[in-house]
């Protein structure tokens, strides 16, 4: 995990510096090793390097899937909300709903919350730690069938994240 933090921070250092030199490389190595030694227990605990390289390739594939689904959903829901904005008389029926998850680790729960906050016309409001329930504010739910369809979409994301991080 410290190794992963080191690699990520070194890549970020090169992107910031904008040039590839021997001096930049030496200075970046020193600084990133100090940072990853000092602050690594605050670092990303979610992705652990305990598995083999083949598994690692599979995980990058899943990461790509998750980000593409994320951006796609952002655009879809943005189109839906902007259509509401230009109506002559804005008409929606908001509701507050509780949803239970089955994810175990803390960080995967957080990433699912990010997934809920941006896409799908919803907004994560609160979270119970003991019961693992989200309180969600939905924008347009007219009947219970639609709610079930949307819940099924969230379940799909949950399976993807569970494959990636658990």
């Amino acid at each position: 995990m410290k190794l992963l933090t080191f690699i990520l921070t070194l890549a970020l250092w090169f992107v910031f510096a904008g040039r590839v030199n021997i001096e930049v490389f030496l200075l970046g190595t020193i600084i990133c090793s100090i940072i990853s030694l000092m602050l690594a227990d605050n670092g990303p605990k979610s992705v652990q390097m305990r598995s083999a390289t083949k598994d690692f390739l599979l995980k990058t594939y899943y990461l790509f899937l998750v980000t593409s689904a994320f951006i796609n959903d952002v655009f879809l829901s943005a189109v839906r909300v902007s259509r509401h904005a230009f109506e002559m008389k804005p008409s929606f029926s908001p509701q507050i709903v509780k949803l239970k998850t089955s994810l175990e680790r803390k960080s995967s729960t957080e990433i699912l919350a990010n997934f809920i906050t941006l896409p799908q016309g919803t907004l994560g409001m609160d979270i119970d730690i003991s019961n693992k329930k989200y309180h969600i504010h939905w924008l347009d739910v007219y009947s219970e069938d639609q709610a079930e369809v949307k819940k099924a979409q969230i379940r799909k994301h949950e399976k993807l994240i569970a494959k990636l991080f658990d």
Partner: protein
Amino acid sequence: MSRMNAMFKKLYKLVLVVSLAIFLFIVFDEIHNLDNNSKRYLSEHYISEGVQETGAINIVTSVLYDYRAFDTLGEATVLLTAAAILSFLVPLGKDKMLGTTFTMIVSQTTKFFIPFLAVLGAYLILFGHLAPGGGFVGGVVMAVIPILLTITYRVEFSEYKFKPAKKKLAEDIGAIGFILLGLVGVVTGSNFLANGQANFGPGNTGELISAGLIPFLNLMIGIKVGAGLAIIFNSLIKEK
């Protein structure tokens, strides 16, 4: 009548802001169109020859740490005094504060966020003579890390991670190192805090190791500002 009065008050504020904007516009236009060359020969000199004399691309940095480095020392002293007096005068007893309690989503995000923030601060400090940034901005970005720890967890965790004695030590190291680097100029036979005149090997302009003493001065100011702001924020928080 009272509604009339309130509306008049609102209008008065608006007119005040607009007239201030017009006044500033006229003043800056006047400064921009100044024909008299004798009034701005100094800035002409800085702009035209600052890069060759100091070796730093960023002109603001070359003014702050070379031509007017003594003023920078004064500003640093102000911060040092403020941090010391605040940590003396603010009472130690802490009370519970009203406010929002954050959920664990925020804390997980800050955990993920902190090492990259540290890299950003280090980049801003060390590349201060090539890119916009420098000691003050980089120090503020470094000070954001204990502030984030304070507002997502609590004061005790932040002071357990970064001990107050160590922060005080870092601030002192910054202040003393700045003065010692200034004394190097005296030893080699020129003024206090001299950099460009004393020829400390300006190097090739645009590379990482260049511009003489300026990167080291940036480093000292960055350490000092970061530690000082963290001390000030943590001693003003009264949350339990």
